[in-house]
């Protein structure tokens, strides 16, 4: 039932494609100019799972904020499904690292908030919220306030909030970064399952190379000063993936070595 809730315009099957063309951004920090992004270009196909890894200062979070439409580049264009981004939209869901659930609202209300501007009846919306609460495993915690939840549970609620309006594109800014490793690997499997079920495009920023390889179709490695893409790795292994698989290990070493060489270059 809740599955029938759609945003207008209705979701197309091939929605969620992204074209980033020559995007640059500079910041002024303490009188110095920092090139956060230097003509970055990247094409993402609808339904892809893309991870962006790189050291802090490589502009990966900046790029994600541009994709969300929260900030804009100095030059270059970002086009999602043929339309240039100029402001945030419910068609591009974002999950922040610090979950950002409103502390005065229950889990239920926090998730429901993302349907505030979506057309549809209250009943439909309530069903959609309950469906998502069940989906991320928070059944029984509908009325709980964020401070009553653990870090992992809060992040599940935040993911549910991001998913509620059925965005063709889901943006994840280190969504599991603050969690302990046990909770983290469980949520990775949940993310994969959600992605397979919702068939949305996912762009995830992460620090964790293994997480990126475990989840993604492609891993984009970025480098800092100026922020740009240094290499893109295609991960072809079938899912579910095993972290001790020889190919997995090789790719992880390649990426780690690439990140290590960047560090040497910059210090």
């Amino acid at each position, binding site marked *: 039932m809740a599955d029938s809730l759609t945003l207008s315009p209705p979701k197309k099957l091939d929605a969620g494609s992204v074209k980033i063309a020559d995007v640059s951004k500079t910041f002024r920090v303490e009188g110095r100019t920092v090139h956060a992004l230097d003509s970055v270009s990247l094409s993402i196909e609808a339904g892809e799972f893309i991870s962006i890894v790189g050291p802090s200062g490589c502009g990966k979070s900046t790029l994600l904020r541009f994709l*969300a439409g*929260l900030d804009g580049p100095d030059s270059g264009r970002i086009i999602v499904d043929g339309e240039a981004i100029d*402001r*945030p*939209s*419910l068609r*591009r*869901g*974002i999950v*922040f690292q*610090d979950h*950002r659930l*409103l*502390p*005065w*609202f229950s889990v239920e209300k926090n998730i429901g*908030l*993302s349907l*505030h*501007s979506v057309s549809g009846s209250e009943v439909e919306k309530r069903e959609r919220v309950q469906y998502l609460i069940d*989906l*991320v*495993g928070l059944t029984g*915690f509908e009325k*709980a*306030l*964020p*401070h*009553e*939840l*653990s870090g*992992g*549970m809060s992040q599940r609620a935040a993911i549910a909030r991001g998913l509620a309006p059925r965005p063709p594109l889901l943006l994840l800014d280190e969504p599991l970064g603050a969690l302990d490793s*046990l*909770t983290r690997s*469980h*949520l990775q*499997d*949940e993310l994969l*399952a959600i992605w*397979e*079920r919702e068939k949305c495009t996912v762009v995830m920023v992460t620090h964790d190379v293994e997480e990126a390889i475990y989840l993604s179709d492609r891993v984009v490695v970025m480098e800092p000063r100026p922020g740009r893409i240094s290499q893109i790795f295609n991960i072809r292994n079938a899912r579910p993936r095993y972290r001790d698989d020889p190919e997995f290990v090789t790719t992880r070493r390649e990426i780690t070595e690439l990140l290590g060489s960047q560090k040497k270059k910059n210090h």
Partner: protein
Amino acid sequence: MSDVTFKNAVLVDTAFDRSTGRGWRGIVSAPSLPSWTGKAVLGLVIPFLVLALWSYAVRQEWLAEQILPDPRLVYETTLDLLITGQLPAELAVSLGRVASGLAVGGGLGLLFGLAFGLFRPLDIYVAPTVRAICLVPSLGWLPFFMLLFGIGEALKIILIAKTCFLPLMVGAYEGIRSRPRKYDDVARALELPWFARVRLVVWPSILPSILTGVRQALSRGWKVLILVEMISSAAGLGYLMMWGRKAFQLDVVFATMIVIGLVGWALDYGLTKFQHQTTGWSFKAAA
């Protein structure tokens, strides 16, 4: 396939939470604080000790009877004042005054605080003057106000309003200035329209600070009210106390003091409860 994954994940996750004592279950089932009655009993220990000391002092005649009346006499006087209806009547007058003063002054303070918090030019040009005016104590304004408004009802309401103005102005202002900006990104990403943004995201985040302002306004307003009633009034708790002093009936003075203290405490306690009910999250959430 994926359903199985979720269920396992949930089991492990909540089990983990319980073992670290965090999460929903941990908080609900943590009865480490004394129960409501327990707390009430503990709160009464010191008043009873004071009462015992008072009785002892009277019995030993440490002070003249006219200065320190017998607690039993104070008790009887209080009962008397209650039965004749004088005390409830004076209390009603006082409460009415403090309510109107709080409504007028607090309301204006809230508006000014919000305006100063939201509009930088107002904050720069107007706020220093307003703050300076507020920092002259209410009693300092009294002579001027008496000449201007007379000694009628208006004077009392205006003085209480003046007292209630500053705490709410500061509360609203601080609420706006220190509100967490990170939720603005959420409001934008969720495409909330302007009004929904104010109502659902901005207002709840400044409400704790405003309610703290209300509590301060009420307790300050209550104290100023009694003073004003003592200086110029023909009704109210302050008047009753003044009348007791003039008639050298210290038992009436003591009865009034106790009522003023108890009512003031009850008002603050009630508001604190209300604050915990409406903005309880702000006492627990690590912003």
